[in-house]
């Protein structure tokens, strides 16, 4: 016959096993894809039919974003039919010009030159100033009146505000932050992205 103490021990073991099983089950649940990472209005490169969508939250005064930019272009060239890059803005508050630069890129986008402006901003990142924004617009031969009007427009402001809301909901707190097909991507070097793309393509 079992003693009272033995029965107590068996009960304790049973409940411990039960709690651990529930915890392990919950931990092993596959994570849900994060919603609203991609918006139809977001700037993008690569075919819409691509199997892999890479979303980047970027800041124009972040050195790492600058470094990664040409590397992303190389990846787009490596996977011409299967990779789409979606660029969303996450101007960090400590970067005083970042928000203005994001607005300028969007304003250039309204004249069909988003990516030209994007590349030019990174090219001149080290020496960027408020005056430099207008110079870039002039160098890209943009209609300066429209550019000035657009970058101060409500439409552009709301677009970037929406990017920030979506970023915060997705848990973004630094730049660049990447999401691949709706899931967060651990980014230490460009190879991490390449490996993640390969993984998605072999799924």
């Amino acid at each position: 016959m079992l003693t009272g103490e033995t029965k107590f021990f068996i009960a304790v073991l049973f409940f411990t096993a039960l709690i651990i099983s529930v915890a392990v089950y919950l931990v092993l649940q596959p994570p849900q894809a994060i919603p609203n990472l991609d918006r139809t209005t977001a700037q993008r490169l690569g075919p819409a039919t691509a199997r892999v969508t890479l979303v980047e939250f970027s800041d124009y005064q972040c050195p790492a974003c600058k470094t990664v930019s040409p590397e992303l272009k190389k990846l787009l060239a490596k996977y011409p039919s299967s990779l789409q890059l979606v660029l969303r803005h996450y101007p960090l508050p400590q970067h005083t010009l970042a928000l203005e630069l994001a607005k300028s890129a969007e304003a250039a986008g309204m004249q069909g030159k988003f990516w030209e402006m994007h590349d030019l901003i990174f090219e001149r990142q080290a020496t960027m100033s408020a005056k430099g924004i207008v110079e870039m617009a002039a160098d890209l031969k943009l209609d300066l009146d429209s550019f000035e009007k657009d970058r101060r427009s409500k439409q552009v402001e709301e677009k970037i505000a929406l990017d920030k809301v979506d970023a915060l909901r997705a848990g973004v707190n630094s730049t660049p932050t990447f999401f691949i097909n709706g899931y967060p991507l651990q980014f230490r070097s460009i190879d991490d992205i390449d490996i993640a793309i390969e993984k998605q393509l072999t799924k």
Partner: protein
Amino acid sequence: MKNRFVFIFSLVGGLIALYILNSYQTATPLVCLSGSGCEIVRKSPYANPFGIPVPAIGVAGFASILGVSFLLSLKTKYHHLLTWLLKAITLLGLIFVISFTYIEIFLIRAICSWCVFSAAIITIIFILAWHQAILRKLC
């Protein structure tokens, strides 16, 4: 009654050791109350004596205490022998945690909160196991 405490404490200790062992094996970050202490201790050469990860020693130690405690509850004819076995294991455990705490403080120079927690648990179990014996001697 004391055996119930031995059982519960060894279960808690064993679960902690299992959690840490799992993070050793999968190289996932540890939740740590002493800042970066746990990571420093984990990455130190003392974390794997003779190739055995310290938490594995913890799992084995706590599991054996748990097993002996369970057998004690059955009140078999080996009760006396099991009491001494429990005392022997807890003594070894105590020696081990004292040495490891010494290594942490003086050689690694970092404190891992989980190790401190485990050391406290093994000390309590040691007192419970030996206290019973001392009481019996006195009565």
